[in-house]
């Protein structure tokens, strides 16, 4: 790499540092509360049998959810990217949509449908079915509503993979399984691990599923402390333990990732491979996808519709008030924009100047991600009311909170698209005398656009569903679809909550579907272009034509 002009580097570092410090506000608050609580009391809480039991049950859940998400997502990615699966385009959108369903809605629907003597049991006419409460229920609903994090990252990595390498491996006589293990998997691993990171930390922080399924985790315990004993010190200790867990998981991921440079993906050299003929596999593949989407989409939508019909019969409107919709959309769009912009300097530091500074910034940025929303929200309440009262309970503060909460989703997406950009492109631009700003704008930004879009899309989706921070930090009187659902369900107006729930799912799905369709089309176009217009670059990556002839 060319030596950097120190001033530019400094600007980038300052920006990244600012983001890291902002993201670390919740930890600061937790440390302070723990300190206030006292050392020995904190140690007592941290080492009590109850806490250790919770640690075990929390880890068990996070590991199980992550593993099953990978197991579900990787085959779907393969089916929708590399095979002649019937309805491939539709499946590739439908399989991501469960992400639009909040776990508190999805788990509630599961209980209604699959619970003991629920709709499913009465449909089959059986007295009782195995209980879905506890570990299995929490595991199933977290997996079904968060596996798309892995699917999204793996799919986009798979679309970028150069099929030439696989073809070469097959040419050399390796079986397709062996080729997958030795050629494809190593290239997918960074994408799998960054998706898995999102899933595992998300499952540490989730309250909706574990509360509904009555499974004890750290997050549930923190809520319990807040609700019952109102002991902020003990909750702070548990929160800090979650932060330590997050940093541990992150360090593991960083270590895995260190190897990814060996498999750096260059430029946009991939072309469309011949789709794999599924043959007889088609039936089980379709059956599996059908079962998955039934559980993760049809069941929640069915139960929502059931309550919607009942609500409408009792005089509730089908479609919620416009103000709820516009409030939800506008804060989510703002949060998506702010989080994505804040993610750029962090991702660039991590990618371009790896080292201790970058590591610290990355860990700080992620630190709040595994914390339950209520902890982050209370930290910002304390900070806002006492340090910046003029901004407290403003929309800006709420957007700031969302950005801190979901920053890692944007960082992950931007980072993986930075990974695709060979530094030589920027270097060439600089050597040709372009300013760094011009280089960023003309060279880097266009290449980053898919990553920025994906990051913004994820943050948008997650913000739409967010509840605890919205309840505590939104301007007084500001309601969103999520708070409306919460308000109605908590007082037993289930029919009234169905309209907002349906609107929330539909409005979150729409941008997701658009984003996915566009990325697919762009993918297709880019592949077309590389074949035609960039023979020079192709020559480096593509398989020689005689290899292709043999297929």
């Amino acid at each position, binding site marked *: 790499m060319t030596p950097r002009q120190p001033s530019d580097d400094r600007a980038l570092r300052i920006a990244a540092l600012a983001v890291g410090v902002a993201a670390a506000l919740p930890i600061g608050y937790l440390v302070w509360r723990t300190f206030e609580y006292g050392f020995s009391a904190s140690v007592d809480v941290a080492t009590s049998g109850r806490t250790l039991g919770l640690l075990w049950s929390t880890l068990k859940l996070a590991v199980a959810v992550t593993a099953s998400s990978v197991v579900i997502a990787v085959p779907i990615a393969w089916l929708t990217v590399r095979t002649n699966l019937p309805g491939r385009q539709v499946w590739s959108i439908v399989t991501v949509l469960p992400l639009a369903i909040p776990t508190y809605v999805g788990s509630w629907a599961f209980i209604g449908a699959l619970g003991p003597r629920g709709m499913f049991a009465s449909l089959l006419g059986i007295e009782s079915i195995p209980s879905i409460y506890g570990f299995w229920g929490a595991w199933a609903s977290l997996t079904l509503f968060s596996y798309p994090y892995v699917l999204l990252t793996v799919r986009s990595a798979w679309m970028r993979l150069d099929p030439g390498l696989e073809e070469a491996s097959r040419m050399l006589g390796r079986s397709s399984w062996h080729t997958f293990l030795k050629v494809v998997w190593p290239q997918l691993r960074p994408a799998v691990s960054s998706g898995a990171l999102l899933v595992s930390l998300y499952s540490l922080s989730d309250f909706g599923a574990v509360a509904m399924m009555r499974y004890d985790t750290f997050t549930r315990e923190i*809520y319990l402390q807040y609700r019952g004993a109102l002991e902020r010190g003990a909750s702070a200790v548990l929160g800090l333990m979650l932060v330590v867990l997050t940093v541990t998981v992150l360090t593991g991921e960083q270590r895995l990732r260190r190897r990814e440079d060996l498999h750096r993906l260059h430029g946009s050299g991939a072309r469309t491979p011949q789709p794999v003929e599924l043959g007889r596999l088609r039936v089980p593949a379709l059956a599996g996808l059908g079962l998955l989407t039934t559980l993760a989409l049809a069941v929640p939508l069915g139960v929502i519709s059931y309550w919607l019909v009942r609500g409408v019969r009792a005089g509730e409107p089908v479609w919620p008030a416009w103000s709820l919709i516009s409030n939800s959309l506008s804060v989510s769009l703002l949060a998506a924009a702010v989080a994505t912009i804040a993610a750029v300097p962090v991702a660039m530091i991590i990618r371009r100047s790896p080292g201790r500074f970058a590591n610290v910034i990355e860990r700080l940025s992620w630190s709040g991600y595994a914390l339950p929303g209520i902890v982050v929200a*209370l930290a910002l309440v304390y900070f806002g009311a006492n340090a910046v009262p003029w901004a407290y309970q403003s929309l800006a503060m709420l957007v700031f909170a969302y950005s801190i909460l979901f920053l890692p989703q944007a960082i992950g997406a931007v980072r993986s698209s930075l990974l695709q950009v060979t530094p030589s492109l920027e270097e060439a631009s600089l050597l040709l005398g372009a300013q760094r700003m011009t280089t960023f704008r003309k060279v880097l930004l266009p290449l980053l656009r898919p990553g920025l879009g994906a990051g913004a899309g994820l943050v948008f989706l997650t913000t739409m569903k967010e509840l605890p921070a919205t309840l505590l930090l939104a301007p007084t009187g500001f309601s969103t679809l999520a708070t409306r659902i919460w308000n109605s369900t908590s*007082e037993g107006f289930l029919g009234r909550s169905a309209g907002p729930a349906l609107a929330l799912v539909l409005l979150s799905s729409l941008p997701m579907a658009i984003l996915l369709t566009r990325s697919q089309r762009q993918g297709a176009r880019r592949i077309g272009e590389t074949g035609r217009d960039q023979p020079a670059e192709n020559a480096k990556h593509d398989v020689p034509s005689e290899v292709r002839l043999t297929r």
Partner: protein
Amino acid sequence: MAMARVPLSTTLAGACALAVVVTSCGGDNNSLTLYSGRGEDLVQPAIDQCADRLNVEINVRYGDSAEMLLLLQEEGDNTPAALYYSQGAGYLGILSADGGLLPLDEKLTSQVSDANLVSPANDWIGITGRARTIVYNTEALSESDLPESFVDFTDPKWSGRIGWAPTNASFQDHITALRGLLGDDATRAWLTAIVENEPVAYEKNTPILEAVASGEVDIGFVNHYYLYRFLAEDPDFPVANHFFDDGDPGALINVAGAGVITHSKNPDAAQEALECLLSADIQEYFASTNYELPVVAGAEPWSELPSINSLTLPEFDLNLLADLEGTVDMLVDVGAL
């Protein structure tokens, strides 16, 4: 980063402009901020009425009662809130013990029909009452199958058939009251025996009613008014309330109450708002729409509400309700949480 900077600054400017619009109403004398642990569907119409009547703007933040209390505690002196409206007396007791509430005028506290509905320090007041009851599945049980007293659910024949919400504020207030009525030892023994009956735990009241209706459990410990909402949406809902006789530990009346925040910027307007919530027509609105029990002398309860016509409270010290921590510790000890 020129291109990135443009959207950032416009975004922030947009957010701030909006924020100014949204918050510009706060702080002046003609507006009040209320933190409500009670749901929007239940109280907003009453608050709109009072805002009209007093010609003030009342901004309401809705959330969980405990979370709204935490909010007040974190905000401290800088709270924008003038009023706190809680689901149960326990959280009000905690706020009162912290010095977070202002004493109320006598003309306010004297309106309430029962001295037990006002805090011992005169700094919070009950707005409506809710009876603790049990609900039962009418297909599985008839009323005569139910025990004489609430405390008899320790009988092993109820094993696996009870639904409860040990993390719920109303339930915890009930246990705190039992501690006052029966003493800590007897309450602990009772809880231990109930836990041995393996009750099914739910997050709050509503899922308990759903579970009783579906037959997942046969009975549930709840507040009385949730049922009528289910019945309004579905007259065939197979669940009924059972009220224990006056004086039974199961016949507790819990209050939803409110108080004026110490750091409130216009405490007088806040008191007027409370006074309005106690006026006869608003009390009747709570009674007829939410099926709650009015607390002022003249107002009538919902006509179809069976068997409880008066607020007879078992005798115990309301100050005890603030000891939520003791209750939670006990629930943890016996394995209920």
